[in-house]
């Protein structure tokens, strides 16, 4: 073809519009979900106001609803999960990239990725029937024996509760954080590391001063991915958190999270205020997740500027 085909430029603009429409779907969907949640929460917002976020009185009989225990449980179980999973994930990633022999690294990596493929309900059932009783028999009495003076570890060891939920969540987010962190560490240019070794640095020094700073942006991205997953995890948490609408100082005590409350109570809620309160909990979760993502973006941007390294 010697002449320029007029259809080509037309095709280009069609293509542009097509992709634009496709990319519009996501923000529209987000806005739609948000508006729908707000609309359905209105009766509850009007009736309880700010009190909904502070009160932990959740009483379907008297139609008084306060979501504080669910919000608290969501945050605390996620925190426990992060505190356990993050150091573990980074340690594993460092071992795989820096220290392990290639054969070992490959096998362990595959196993960690398999961990990510297990459906959450399996974690839940395993947590309830295997891990929960194990916690009650071995871990909780041990914790109580050593740290029993802290209010965090008081009360009868039931095996189900906030701590167990946090640990199960940690297992679930570990593979995500670990896999990404490992990839990030692998992307650190060999030249940089080799020059550090060449200057006589030890493995620990290279890790601390080269690998981790170089991959920091990626690590933080991985953390937020894990955080997002932990905040909204439903089935596994519902199985092991104990599902009680109360805030307790002890991590052994049963609690609940926003997602578990919704999973438990939505199907049989008939009263309009009840449904609306559940919707408002959904709205709160939506906002928390959104804020976490915005926070992540903000932090990453700041880091890009101050380090001017990264991926």
């Amino acid at each position, binding site marked *: 073809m010697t002449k320029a085909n007029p259809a080509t430029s037309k095709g280009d603009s069609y293509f542009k519009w097509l992709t634009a429409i496709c990319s519009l779907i996501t923000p529209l969907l987000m806005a739609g979900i948000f508006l729908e949640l707000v609309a359905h929460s209105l009766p509850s917002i009007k009736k309880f106001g700010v009190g909904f976020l502070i009160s932990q009185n959740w009483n379907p009989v*008297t139609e008084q609803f306060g979501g504080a225990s669910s919000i608290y449980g969501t945050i605390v179980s996620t925190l426990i999960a992060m505190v356990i999973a993050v150091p573990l994930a980074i340690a594993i990633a460092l071992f795989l990239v820096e220290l392990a022999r290639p054969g070992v690294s490959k096998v362990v990596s595959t196993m960690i990725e398999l961990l990510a493929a297990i459906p959450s309900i399996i974690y839940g059932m395993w947590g309830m029937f295997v891990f929960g009783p194990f916690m009650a028999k071995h871990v909780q009495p041990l914790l109580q024996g050593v740290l029993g003076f802290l209010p965090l570890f008081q*009360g009868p060891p039931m095996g189900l*509760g906030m701590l167990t939920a946090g640990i199960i969540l940690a297992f679930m987010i570990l593979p995500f954080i670990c896999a990404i962190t490992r990839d990030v560490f692998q992307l650190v240019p060999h030249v940089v590391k080799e020059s550090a070794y060449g200057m006589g640095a030890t493995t620990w020094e290279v890790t601390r001063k080269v690998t981790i700073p170089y991959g920091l942006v990626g690590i933080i991205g991985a953390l937020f991915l894990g955080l997002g997953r932990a905040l909204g995890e439903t089935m596994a948490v519902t199985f092991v958190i104990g599902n009680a609408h109360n805030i307790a100082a002890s991590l052994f005590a049963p609690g609940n999270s926003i997602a578990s409350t919704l999973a438990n109570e939505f*199907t049989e809620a008939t009263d309009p205020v009840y449904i609306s309160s559940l919707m408002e909990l959904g709205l709160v979760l939506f906002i928390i997740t959104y804020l976490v993502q915005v926070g992540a973006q903000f932090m990453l941007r700041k880091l890009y500027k101050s380090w001017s390294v990264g991926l």
Partner: protein
Amino acid sequence: MKKVMWLAVALVGLMALAGLAQAEDLTLNGAGASFPYPIYSQWTHKYNSLTGVKINYQSIGSGGGIAQIKAKTVDFGASDEPLKPEALAEAKLVQFPMVIGGVVLVVNIPGVGPGQLKLTGEVLGDIFLGKISKWDDPAIKGLNPDLKLPSQAITVAHRTDGSGTTFIFTSYLAMVSPAWKEKVGAGKAVKWPAANSIGGKGNEGVAGQVKVVSGAIGYVEYAYALQNKMAFTQLKNKSGKFLSPSLEAFQGAAANADWKNAPGYYLMLNNQPGDQSWPIAGATYILLQQDQPNAAKAAAMLKYFTWCYEHGGEMAAKLDYVPLPKTVVEMVKATWAKELKADGKPVTY
């Protein structure tokens, strides 16, 4: 090659025929309570194989069942918690009981087997209120002088989803414990007052939690206690007798109930008189529109329900449900004749 072609043609023809046959059959749609789902699904399956009438029952929960029959998106709704007569009149619905189930208490106490622990309504109320928090509490020991009860904390296990089972159980506690009635009340979902309480979704959830948590007590439908081989307790009934749960004991509760003076069959089978009456039981209900839009469908539904009453008892008993007493079935049929209308006329079936 030719053979394969012919086979394919024959197959397509058969499928088309099957499709036609299915289109001619009547399909009834129902939705609601999950508590009777096991027996409903068996009944519909058997009835379909006998008559060709297809019945879809979606176990979406009582709340959903009520909402759907009100919205007229299903032919019949099902609920564990009966609607009050006023609510029935307002929504123009007819309500009748279908089958009866018993709620039992299960415990996980080291060294205590099925049927060994004896409890009364008042003690049970105090346990679920959190007032009695150890298994060797004098109130429990007094009822069980022969049992060796450990000094272990009691964990109360309950349903987290709104459920008919919870409604039946909390209604019972409200009947026998004034403190429970005042502080908590009765409902499909309540605020559980005991400090040590954990929740599970569905009967299987509660049964599972009682199984894994040492020192736990929970309430489940009888079938779940049997299937999971759990340690159920004895309970003292209204006549002062300690009973172990059994189908006969549930039947006793149903037979002694005063159905006649309960408009809309709104009736608790809890705490019924009679030596052989288990104190915690309840019926599960079917909801129909008063004005049936389709006479053929209405007739098919009533035929099906009659079949369930007359031939479904054995299947129900196998799944640990109690069939409705004959006298009550006759009352239900009278209700149909009186209240159900299709095209302004009573439904003939």
